[in-house]
């Protein structure tokens, strides 16, 4: 195993251009595994009984969330045929936060505390799929609109959902508000534990569906007309993909809260490095980049700067810059 890794690295040094995508993926995976190992063992001081489950939960959350964001972003960019749009820039996670708040608003925290959190989660995801499916179908797919209009409308929808969430939260009793407060900020230190297991199951199920239709996704990337020509049942497929995207966004937002520009960053890193447009490679590559970024970033923030939950602020900064560059470059073409 080690010998083959050394060989791979040597090969990469010599013919960097001609490295096949599979090997690039393997390298990324090794980097991710290496980082995770370091994260699990650094400064452990022998307290394994405490540290392994504690850090393990964090890692599990990062892997789940990273992969969910990466896969949903790549698929969303494929069906909208656009590499600026991402679900979170379009307000998907703001919508999920709104649905969460509406549930608390109408049911009340007392009744919610009696409810099984997994059941509540399922209910929210279901509402999210129905609502966002209709809204974004109408917005993106039904009518041909200019890309810039779409992005702008998406951003403003995000602001609207955000303000509306804020408004409802102000109208909820302060005690009930406390239930929601934690959900608003992305942080891997306050991961929703009860949902980790069910999230993992959902993500595995969604991944199986994605894997079975991976070639259909490649066909969709050709655009509407061409994909219909090669035999894709366009409307139905788009709806399915949109539903998958929505489920993934709900899972990641429920676990850690919204991280706006993360998907944009990792998707573009994947497109740039993997050297193939096939979803077989881009989705895993984006997922691995997510894990590398989240684990590495969290480690650097915790160990070097000794503070925790501002990872999402850093991501917003870098992602915002990338977005401006992408828009400006697109405008120049």
């Amino acid at each position, binding site marked *: 195993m080690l010998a083959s890794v050394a060989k791979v690295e040597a090969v990469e040094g010599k013919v960097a251009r001609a490295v096949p995508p599979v090997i690039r993926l393997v390298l990324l995976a090794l980097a991710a595994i290496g980082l995770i190992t370091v994260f699990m063992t650094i400064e452990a001081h022998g307290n394994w009984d405490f540290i392994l489950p504690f850090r393990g939960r964090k890692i599990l959350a990062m892997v789940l969330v990273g992969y969910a964001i990466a896969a949903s972003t790549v698929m969303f960019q494929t069906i909208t045929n656009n590499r600026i749009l991402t679900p979170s820039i379009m307000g998907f996670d703001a919508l999920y936060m709104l649905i969460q708040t509406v549930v608390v608003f109408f049911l009340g925290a007392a009744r919610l505390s009696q409810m099984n959190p997994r059941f509540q989660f399922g209910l929210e995801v279901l509402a999210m799929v129905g609502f966002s499916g209709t809204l974004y179908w109408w917005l993106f797919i039904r009518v041909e609109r200019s890309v810039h209009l779409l992005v702008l409308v998406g*951003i403003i929808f995000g602001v*609207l959902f*955000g303000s509306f969430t804020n408004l409802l939260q*102000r109208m909820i009793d302060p005690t009930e508000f406390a239930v929601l407060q934690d959900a608003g900020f992305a942080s891997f230190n306050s991961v929703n534990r009860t949902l980790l297991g069910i999230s993992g199951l959902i993500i595995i199920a969604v991944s199986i569906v994605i894997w079975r239709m991976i070639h259909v996704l490649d066909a969709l990337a050709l655009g509407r007309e061409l994909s219909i020509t090669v035999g894709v049942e366009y409307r139905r497929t788009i709806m399915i993909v949109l539903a998958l995207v929505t489920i993934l966004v709900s899972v990641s937002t429920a676990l850690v809260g919204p991280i706006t520009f993360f998907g944009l960053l990792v998707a573009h890193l994947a497109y740039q490095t993997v050297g193939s447009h096939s979803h077989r490679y881009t989705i895993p590559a984006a997922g691995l980049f997510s894990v590398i970024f989240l684990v590495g970033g969290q480690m650097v923030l915790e160990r070097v700067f000794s503070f925790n939950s501002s990872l999402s602020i850093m991501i917003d900064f870098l992602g915002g*810059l990338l977005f*401006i560059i992408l828009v*400006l470059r697109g*405008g120049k073409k």
Partner: protein
Amino acid sequence: MQVQSGQLSYRLGLATVGVIFLACISLVIGVYSFSFRDLISGQADVHSSMVLFVSRIPRTVAIVLVGASTSIAGMIMQMLVRNRFVSPSTAGTVESASLGILIITLLVPNASIPLKILFASLVALAGTGLFLLLLRSIPLRSPLIVPLVGIMLGGVISSVTSFFAYRYDLLQSLSIWTNGDFSRILRGRYELLWLSGALTLIAFIIADRFTVAGLGEAFTTNLGLNYGRVLAIGLTIVCIVIAVNVVTVGAIPFLGLIVPNVVSMMLGDNVKRTAPWVAVTGAGFLLACDIAGRTLRFPFEIPIGTVVGVVGSVVFLVLLLRGSARVG
């Protein structure tokens, strides 16, 4: 649908009366109730007149000043950049002003309010200048790129702000500047807003120049105006107004964007004619939002930034999707 100018000023008078009516409603809403009749006949107790003069009147005046000045600031920016969707909150101006307040708070912890405003204005100017520079580097294919770049620039700037606020434990103060709220307004805490009012008046007087500057550098020079100077004056007015408003009440999203757009949809783009309408509509809109925020969950209050955020984003969406047939 041309409207006669005589009829128009008649309607403007009517709109002003409407705003005054809203202002009166705004005066009587609150936990402490009193009647105007008692006040006028001199029978009111000491508490009533104190509540009125220390809290209610300053608040209502502040709302009118902020509403009018922010809307006019948005109108000036739209003329100078020649784009309908540019405004202080979609060009990084507001976010830069908050960054400025944060920097001065860190450097000089007990800075006086005028110093804060001065510094916030300077940083707001720098941020808006950066936005204009970015715009120059793209040939404008779609007018929608402009607000898109502006919103994102604002996002990047505010992530820098929240990074430092987080680092130095100022997140709570930051949320005061970023979410507009009039409940803190008392006598002695709003008077600087008159500066916004005065600048708005100046903007009225020289509104024609902004229209000309909006026609482009070559055309402006051709007419004998100094393009650079008009641009500088316009942006300075905008940035000072925004800095004053953000320091005293906090940011109010979309106000400078939707009010001028709605007015120009109804009355066209003749600025001399529409400027008073923009000011009156801005004041009325903000008064209405404030009344809604104070009555929705009486006796508690919903910050006006949140109310305007909901209403404003809906109006902005309607403007975008309605106009998409033309623009897209």
